[in-house]
């Protein structure tokens, strides 16, 4: 479930094109891929960053990396190697991730490898609702890809955005709507039948502490049946634009 959801979330860059709709950019992934293939993979002899770029799609639901990467549901991942766990200002972390950092967890190739294999076995209560990557090669490739966005790597000086999401048509006025938080609270009670208010991610991902814009885009992506999950498509499908805004207003007031 978690992996499934994660695969289909693509909040990356939003731009407004001439037609006035917001689009998720399709980035310059192929250009990058070619570069890595010749450059990095051979140099390191470990993971293949070009293949890692494909693995990274699973992460893009929540993470950005590259030139314009921002913190979204999860922290941006530039310079992740060498970063103290839970240590990036402005990013939202679970208490247990911050604690892990205070206890000395620093992201290296080894620690990332074990975290990516099964996030919860390294940091029990991480907000990261991702099942993990079983295949050691996938992990090595992904880490190689991330390394290319970390200081001192060849890739870092050639950063590009990594957005290659799916187009979602959303009128800017919809994104700008100010929701009725009290109505949102009532509507949110329907979410809580499945999504725990504690933010737990077991079986069903937590939905607390999402950036408002990501939340709105995700709900519209379900509504437009771009994000795939039958229950969520159904639930979002009957929410009006005002109702999605109301929910977003309520959830952003939380915490």
């Amino acid at each position, binding site marked *: *479930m*978690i*992996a*499934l959801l994660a695969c289909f979330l693509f909040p990356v860059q939003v731009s407004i094109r001439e037609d006035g709709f917001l689009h998720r950019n399709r980035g310059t992934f192929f250009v990058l891929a070619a570069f890595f293939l010749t450059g990095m993979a051979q140099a390191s002899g470990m993971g293949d960053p070009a293949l890692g770029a494909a693995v990274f799609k699973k992460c893009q639901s929540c993470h950005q990396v590259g030139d314009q990467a921002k913190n979204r549901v999860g922290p941006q991942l530039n310079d992740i190697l060498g970063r103290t766990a839970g240590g990036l200002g402005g990013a939202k972390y679970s208490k247990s991730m911050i604690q892990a950092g205070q206890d000395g967890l620093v992201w290296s190739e080894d620690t990332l490898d074990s975290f990516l294999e099964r996030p919860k076995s390294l940091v029990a209560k991480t907000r990261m609702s991702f099942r993990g990557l079983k295949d050691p090669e996938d992990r090595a490739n992904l880490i190689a890809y991330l390394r290319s966005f970390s200081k001192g790597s060849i890739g870092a000086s050639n950063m590009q955005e990594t957005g290659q999401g799916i187009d979602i048509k959303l009128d800017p006025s919809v994104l700008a709507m100010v929701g009725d938080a*009290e*109505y949102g609270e*009532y*509507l949110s*009670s*329907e979410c*809580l*039948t*499945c*999504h*725990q*208010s*504690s933010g*737990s991610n*077991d*079986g*069903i991902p937590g939905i607390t502490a999402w950036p408002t814009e990501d939340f709105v885009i995700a709900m519209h992506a379900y509504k437009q049946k771009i994000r795939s999950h*039958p*229950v969520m*498509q*159904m*639930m979002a*499908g*009957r929410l009006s634009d005002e109702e999605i805004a109301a929910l977003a207003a309520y959830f952003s007031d939380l915490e």
Partner: protein
Amino acid sequence: MKLNRRVFMGSGAAAATALAAPMAFAGGHGKPRVVVVGGGAGGATAARYIAKDSKGAVDVTLIEPSRMYYTCFFSNLYLGGIKTIDDLGHSYGTMAAGGVNVVHDWAVGVDRDAKTVTLAGGASVPYDQLILSPGIDFVEGAVAGWDLSSQNAMPHAYKGGSQTELLKAQIAAMPQGGTFAMVAPPNPYRCPPGPYERVSMVAHYLKANNPTAKIIVADPKPKFSKQGLFQEGWGKHYSGMIDWIGDDFGGGNVSVDPGAMTVTIDGEVTKVDVCNVIPAMKAGRIAELAGVTDGKFAPVNAIDMSTKADADVYVLGDASQQGDMPKSGFSANSQAKVCANAVRGALTGSRVFPAKFSNTCWSLIDTNDGVKVGATYEATDEKIAKVDGFISATGETAEVRKATYEESEGWYAGITADMFG
């Protein structure tokens, strides 16, 4: 003050002992009073939401005889050996902490003129608005040869707790190569896929512990919920073990003899080792005693779950007759939130928002082989009407099925937290 003087005077002493907690008993402080009967999926949710959202402006009393609530949901997984009985039990302690006055007693009568509920202990509890969510009882004489006095020999296990444990013990005690029979219920009944998930989980247990055992299902219905998915799964995991006899083959023409442990299906007598009789259902008896039922269930208005019989009495969950929603814990929980919003609005003037309902029922066919069906609903003048729905597909990958099962575990944690806080 809405207390019926005669009832109050008569039962004051008993009331004082039964209701040690601070009640809105004499109504002196003028707070509006909500009484909720039944602390299950509907009642616990409604009580908790009204108490939580009104922030103390409404007195909420929950009347529930049991100290622990054992969910029916996931009880089949307990039969299958996948969950323990402790996984299913939930205490009401958290509700008291959430501002709900929990009274452990049976409601035995409702005086709608005096607006009081009488408890078995003798107390009389006044209400401004009354919410009934008593679940189901069984229709007498529904299965020839069976009545409540036979529930030890032939358990229904269709209310949570001891009946489920009894059925589990009987299955474990079956001789090698023995026969498990189920008499399935006619529509409408709680949890449409429930009997078939149960068949799957019993088969799951038997496959590991008693692989030559047989399962017979006598069904008064020609078809059932998620039939394609279940039958695909039965063929795949339990080939040759399950014999489902639908109405077309006489499955509705059934009688049982609890003394002789026999089941007679369309004239053919079979000796069985375990017989799970799930009779036809009706609203929990208190709804009938309150005079809000019409036939087997209580007709309600879709916008707020108030009964057609009395605008100050609401019926939630399995006991209600509301339209298109299946009788499920998810539905009862969903209806409770709509009702809580309306009741609070009526009593405190808080905003009342449009009714929105939803349901999803997950079922487990074998380890990590989960399926689901769900829909959204809206209130029309006439009923709760289905808007949109979906169902798992046959032939899904093992990965999808596993994810679906894991999702059901997430749902279980979510709904029980939503009910009890």
